[in-house]
């Protein structure tokens, strides 16, 4: 029998090391997994983690794949630290894409520099609109935003399905469910010639800096942290929880919407019935793997993006099933959460009665727990 005891103060060092430990454990499990599958381990690791990065195009694709994950992950980390559980970034992403695309498509005669900025504004507005529904329900009726934001995701994807066979359908597309391709002024500029790396990646990097400033250097960021970790204390200090809900929901919704617009105006080039392989959901993993810190989210976004590209390359070069990608992502999150438990709690074996262990000093307990973490 093993019991968990809460530590008085979690080690700061381990909080930052935990993602690395989780990564190493994931790699080791991968090693075992590959050898059980009878796959040459070295080649598998090479295909999965190195090969995608060996070409200019591959590096650019890493940025393409990571851009929405980082953009959304960064703002979700603000939500989560403020104690606001926006699980519906996927829906806000889709709404942003729809609204931005609607503007772009209705201006298809216009080749002017302001078309794209207008689409971006529409994308932000669309995402904000979608996020404001759970925000309103939460602040007015105290409805759980986890449920409302999540369920609105399904509404959003149905709305998209309706748009591409309805108002935004390509009139010359043989009735297939898709919009026309965007014209030149409505297409996102590529920032690295001959690749697909677009403005979205630059925006993602800027957001990392902005959010870092917001959370560590501004009164607003501080008030979000306080209402997130101690709502009562926040109230005494005059910080309103409702304000936190509105600010974080609108910011995260707006950014998710912008990411959605970038995705359709950039790599996809048109509206399709399905525009996201779950970026809004994967970004939740990204936010947590990144320790809810903007710089951590940057690396976590790149890592998760690499796991997708690696999965494709392992399929092409080694015929590994696509499920390996999912297994890797799942293992990574599993080990990270496990490491989290061990950071905040110590494990003590219980043989007969818990009373026996009152003799253990705190340092000894720490030692026991630390060696548990160290041994894979």
């Amino acid at each position, binding site marked *: 029998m093993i019991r968990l005891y809460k530590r008085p103060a979690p080690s700061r060092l381990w909080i930052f090391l935990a993602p690395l430990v989780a990564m*190493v454990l994931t*790699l*080791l499990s991968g090693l075992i997994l590959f050898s059980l599958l009878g796959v040459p*381990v*070295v*080649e598998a*690791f*090479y295909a999965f983690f*190195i090969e995608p990065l060996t*070409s200019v*195009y591959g590096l650019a*694709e890493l940025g*393409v794949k990571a851009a929405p994950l980082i953009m959304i992950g960064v703002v979700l980390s603000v939500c989560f630290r403020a104690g606001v559980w926006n699980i519906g970034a996927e829906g806000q992403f889709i709404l942003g894409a729809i609204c931005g695309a609607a503007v772009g498509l209705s201006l298809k005669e216009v080749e002017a520099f302001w078309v794209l900025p207008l689409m971006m504004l529409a994308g932000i507005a669309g995402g904000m609109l979608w996020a404001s529904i759970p925000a309103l329900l939460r602040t007015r009726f105290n409805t759980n935003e986890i449920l409302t934001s999540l369920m609105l995701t399904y509404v959003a*994807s*149905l709305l998209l*399905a*309706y748009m591409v*066979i*309805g108002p935004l359908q390509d009139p010359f597309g*043989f*009735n*297939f*469910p898709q919009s026309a*391709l965007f014209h030149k002024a409505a297409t996102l500029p590529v920032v690295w010639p001959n690749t*697909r790396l677009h403005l979205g990646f630059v925006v993602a990097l800027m957001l990392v800096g902005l959010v870092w400033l917001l959370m560590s250097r501004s009164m607003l960021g501080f008030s979000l942290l306080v209402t997130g970790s101690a709502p009562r204390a926040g109230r005494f200090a005059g910080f309103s929880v409702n304000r936190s809900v509105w600010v974080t929901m609108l910011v995260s919704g707006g950014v998710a919407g912008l990411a959605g617009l970038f*995705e359709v105006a*950039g*790599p*996809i*080039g*048109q509206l*399709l*019935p*399905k*525009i*996201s*392989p779950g970026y809004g959901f994967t970004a939740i993993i990204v936010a947590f793997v990144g320790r809810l810190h903007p710089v951590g989210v940057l690396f976590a976004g790149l890592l998760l993006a690499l796991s*997708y*590209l690696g999965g*494709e*390359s392992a*399929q*092409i*070069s080694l*015929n590994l*099933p*696509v*499920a390996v990608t999912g297994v890797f992502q799942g293992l990574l999150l599993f080990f990270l959460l496990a490491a989290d438990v061990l950071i905040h709690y110590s494990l003590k074996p219980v043989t007969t009665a818990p009373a026996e262990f009152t003799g253990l000093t705190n340092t000894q307990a720490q030692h026991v727990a*630390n*060696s548990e973490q*160290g*041994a*894979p």
Partner: protein
Amino acid sequence: MIKNRKLLFQLAVSLLSFAGASLLVNAADDPFKVGFVYVGPVDDHGWTYRHDVGRLAIEEEFGDKVETTFVESVAEGADAERVLRKLATDGHDLIFTTSFGYMNATIKVANSFPDVKFEHATGFKRADNVSTYSGRFYEGRAVIGTMAGMMTKTNVIGYIASFPIPEVVRGINATAIAMRKINPDAEIKVVWVNTWYDPGTEADAAKALIDQGADIIMQHTDSPAPLQVAEERGVVGFGQASDMKAYAPQGQLQAIVDDWGPYYIERTKAAMDGSWESKDTWSGILDGMVQFADYGPSVPDDVKDAANLVREAIVIGELHPFQGPIFDQSGKEIVAEGEIIEDGDLLGMNYYVQGVNGSLPK
């Protein structure tokens, strides 16, 4: 603990250097490389599975002379272009993209790799190095629609449909036309699930349809989940794209089976000997692209006879599934007796015919 970490680090470093070395060694002679991009997992037991059977047929036919690769579960969006580009850069000579949503990505990548041949399933955009191909699956629907019309007792057929594209609408209408010839009281209820492959959603749709009185389940999605639900609930249904008998030994009445192998072999051969040209292929029962499984245990002999008759009539060209008279949902005749809807109109079909319940999402 620190020692352990050091060890791990060393292990990682040696792994990487090994990898580098093996790269240099890996330069062998050049077989003809054929790549496949799949929309679902290779073991979906439906659409994608049958394409993979086609891929294996190529391997069987050409042996060492051909090397095949596939990438499964590729989302129909930004990812498709990257996967295609990667296959092309990795030296694939012929690439099959097996879902409608890959159309623009296929055209785009084909444009930057003029020496690579592309084959896009179910699309309508072609280029000098892009062919399109599909099966006349509506012919199969006419056969199973006949069976459904004869066998339903509640006169409600539940139909789980993916996206309202002409391909899928055509299947629904072909079923309805054949069914109504036999049984003017039968109706088709359609549920749109907006996905090609999602066993959970497909199963939910099947349950909802059975709750609404459907005693026969049909599907235009790729997993056997709807048929499994039918089997559990004691109703019957039809396999889609592949023989799904294993999932519904009692419940599967019949299945339309896609057979891509001969086409894939023919095109690979053409690409190898230089005779490959861009073209559009739309083959049916006659050419063997649309095939059938065995009849299920509960199919009565008269139903088998009727189904066989329809099948043979289609093969010899005596019957066209879209042969008039055809009525719209209000009962107005839209195709006169003896006339046939032309291929061009079939390719853009965006309306329901009589016998289909509800309205087409537009």
